[in-house]
């Protein structure tokens, strides 16, 4: 890990401003988040996109800002601010207040930074602000543009999960690239989004993937005990092949276990081994929902399912864990919605880290943000406001020339500090993952 002093001196010249929609949003427009959205409100996605200097040649801050004004017209509610209705349920007032825009400079070159294998300085390229303590003055999205010494650029997106899941966030930022390239779609109609007020439904069984937390009021952070740390490592395609064949015990590609499930199984078992106390028997799995809602729709629609192990995770064969994760299990989306609706959206929940959570970002167009027609060199996402059980993100990487055009995977772990180092050692020892 890089020492804190080095991290502090890394970023300088920070300037704050705001950008918002170029066209006026009609007054009195509101956006009411769905019950699913409200279940996620204590979580924040922090994504960073790294571009080489050739991708951003000719880019200046005024030009970037100008294109962002055009882009934000398409998602005018993301520039709004939260209020509470008479019942106390939060809603967004589409008042064009804007998203925060942060400019910074990094004293390293892009290549020097990419050599830092664990990417623990990821947090320096994206804002860690949360919504609160005052709802009317908290931006929902914060963008950070960091210039490297070599001319490369990092685009940091701090995204309130209440607006949408990682797939929506990815679509959101990719659209900026489209606007830059001159392919701006037609503006959506200016219409308030209202939740239907219905009688609270009866809930047969409470979902396992979310847990209630003590009321947080207007400061939307997960009340947590452990200090969570982040660690990322990249697995090249060859490493992945090796992992897959070892897990499934098969040499042929066709019979091998699916990639995401393999990685999940490996980490699940390793965590179970190093953890003091009871091993995690329940995990939450998030995947992209199969339906395509269009690039302009932001929502929390990722498929949430839960896998419960009736056997000892430590003793089990990794193949069994893979089967458990891969089999279509109970989809918890509807139950979560019912749970939130029961309390009319007033309760606070933690989702990521309520159980050990695995998120498969494989279905997202993660490398879809194109500047000057080039894709980013590297993209990473993490999440803030994580419960004590931890979160694992599995992100696809850009396809590389050669190696059958397959890219690797980035695995980002957010776990309590003490568990992270032990897990790192275990993965290195048992699975040769560095």
């Amino acid at each position: 890990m890089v020492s804190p002093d080095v991290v502090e001196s890394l970023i300088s010249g920070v300037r704050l401003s705001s950008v918002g929609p170029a066209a006026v949003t009609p007054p009195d427009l509101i956006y009411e988040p769905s019950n699913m959205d409200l279940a996620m409100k204590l979580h924040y996605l922090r994504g960073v996109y790294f571009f080489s200097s050739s991708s951003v040649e000719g880019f200046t801050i005024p030009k970037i800002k100008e294109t962002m004004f055009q882009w934000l017209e398409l998602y005018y509610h993301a520039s709004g601010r939260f209020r509470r209705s008479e019942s106390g349920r939060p809603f967004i007032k589409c008042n064009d207040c804007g998203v925060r825009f942060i400019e910074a400079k990094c004293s390293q070159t892009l290549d020097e930074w990419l050599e830092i294998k664990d990417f623990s300085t990821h947090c320096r390229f994206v804002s860690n602000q949360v919504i609160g303590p005052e709802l009317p003055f908290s931006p929902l999205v914060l963008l950070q543009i960091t210039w490297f010494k070599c001319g490369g650029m990092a685009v940091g997106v701090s995204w309130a999960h209440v607006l949408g899941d990682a797939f929506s966030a990815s679509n959101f930022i990719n659209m900026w690239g489209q606007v830059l390239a001159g392919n701006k779609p037609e503006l959506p109609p200016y219409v308030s989004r209202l939740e239907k007020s219905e009688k609270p439904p009866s809930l047969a069984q409470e979902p396992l993937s979310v847990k209630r937390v003590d009321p947080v009021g207007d400061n939307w952070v997960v009340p947590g005990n452990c200090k969570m740390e982040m660690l990322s490592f990249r697995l090249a395609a060859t490493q992945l092949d090796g992992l897959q064949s070892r897990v499934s015990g098969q040499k042929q590609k066709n019979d091998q276990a699916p990639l995401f499930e393999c990685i999940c199984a490996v980490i699940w078992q390793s965590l179970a081994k190093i953890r003091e106390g009871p091993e995690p028997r329940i995990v939450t799995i998030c995947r992209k929902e199969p339906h395509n809602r269009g690039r302009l729709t932001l929502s929390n629609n990722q498929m949430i399912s839960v896998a419960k192990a009736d056997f000892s995770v430590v003793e089990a064969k990794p193949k069994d864990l893979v089967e458990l994760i891969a089999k279509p299990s109970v989809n918890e989306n509807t139950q979560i919605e019912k749970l939130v609706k029961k309390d009319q959206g007033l309760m606070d929940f933690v989702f990521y880290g309520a159980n050990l959570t695995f998120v498969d970002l494989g279905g997202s167009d993660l490398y879809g943000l194109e500047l000057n027609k080039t894709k980013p060199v590297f993209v990473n996402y993490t999440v803030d406001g994580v419960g004590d059980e931890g979160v694992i993100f599995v992100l696809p990487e850009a396809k590389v020339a050669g190696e059958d055009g397959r890219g690797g995977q980035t695995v980002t772990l957010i776990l309590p500090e003490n568990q992270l180092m032990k897990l790192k050692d275990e993965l290195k020892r048992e699975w040769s993952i560095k």
Partner: protein
Amino acid sequence: MPQTIPSFTSSVRLKYVKLGYRYLVNNLLTVLFIPIMAGLLLEVLRLGPDEIFRLWNSLELDLVHILCSGFLIIIIVTVYLMSRPRHIYLVDFSCFKPLGTLRAPLTTFVEHGRIIKGPDSKAVQFSLKIFERCGLGDETCVPPALRYIPPALTIANSREEAELVIFSAIDSLLEKTGVKPKSIDILILNCSIFSPTPSLTAMIVNKYKMRGDIKSFNLSGMGCSAGMISIGLARDLLQVHPNSYALVVSTEIITYSGYYGEQPSMMLPNCIFRMGSAALLLSNMRKERSRAKYRLFHVIRTHKGADDTAYRCVYQEEDPDGFKGVSLSKDITMVAGQALKSNITTIGPLVLPASEQLLFVLTLVGRKLFERKWKPYIPDFKQAFDHFCIHAGGRAVIDELEKYLNLSAEDVEASRMTLHRFGNTSSSSIWYELSYIETKGRMKKGDRIWQIGFGSGFKCNSVVWKCNRNIRPPVDSPWSECIHRYPVKIPDVVKII
């Protein structure tokens, strides 16, 4: 007749009485002239042609007499024509059209203020109250430097803003009129707060490569009514220099005038000033007569600076914490009212029809001689003007003038809507208002326009124009894209938070 007489008949009958009175007094000469001419004609007809011929011969005029009389008449007419002031025409004008990417909604202002000064800052709370009542909309624009937290108030950024607003207005104007920069003989710019060295006029001369013998003037420190002072100066210069073009630029560079202290008296300009500029092309050339939009009739300047209260009522100074700002005293409404009274006393006789002037004089005499209880008669300026452009200095200014001059909501619509859409752009606001009237298609040939503005000093200045030709709604005005949304109803208090 004076307002103190209670309504004794139905208002309809009163209206006809008023109309009849106006026609009689305004056309008095014609009314007297017709019977006299009729009488003369009857007399001539009665005499018959022979009698008239005999009358003519009895005068015993010979050729010398006739020639001398003829020459005398010619000399008198020539001297009269030469001594008349030249006609000054406004060929065309252009206002800076801000892009949506410079937009600053009021909520953003409040949020930035809270981050810079802290949520408990009295200044921020006071500014919130101002924003709720100011009458500005969410489309007004600020320059990029003021969007930063904290803002970057440097000379370099001020120059950038100046280049953006001034050059884009001038480019648009030169394109519309087809006049080359090298044809400009006179260049006048007014910008109150920002006055760097070299001057902004030098910046324009440099950018457009104007002639070496150009007569340039940079007016600074003269407040929001300086635009009219510039027009007055241009008019005077065009009297002296024949066949000339004068380019007049009115603007205010707000990057330099930002205030970030805690004094409430200095907050108002900070809250309502926005970026804007106007470029006008004036000329005395005869060839411009056919295509010029307006003809200049009067420029009336009233200066109340001799009075100490008026002098100090808009005052630039450092606050106790060292922040530079412009403070507005509590007497400003009273001072403005007095300045306005002086101005309309001067302008009244020049523009008002005889009927209104007579009423005013009669009321004045009546007040002096008889009952002091008679209220002073405020002349009906709607008789003299078809359009009013009241400097959008603030909602209170427009409200007061609407009440005092008895104007209708439509008369002050241009001012209110300009304040809503563009904010207080200082000296250029009267041009945004005129552009509004044109874009709405309300301007016709022969319409008379009154532009009135207030500024530090304390000054109240007026300019009177007459529309020279029919004007089609322009497609490139700053209002073109949004005019269909206007007029909007502006609530008394807008909920920002």
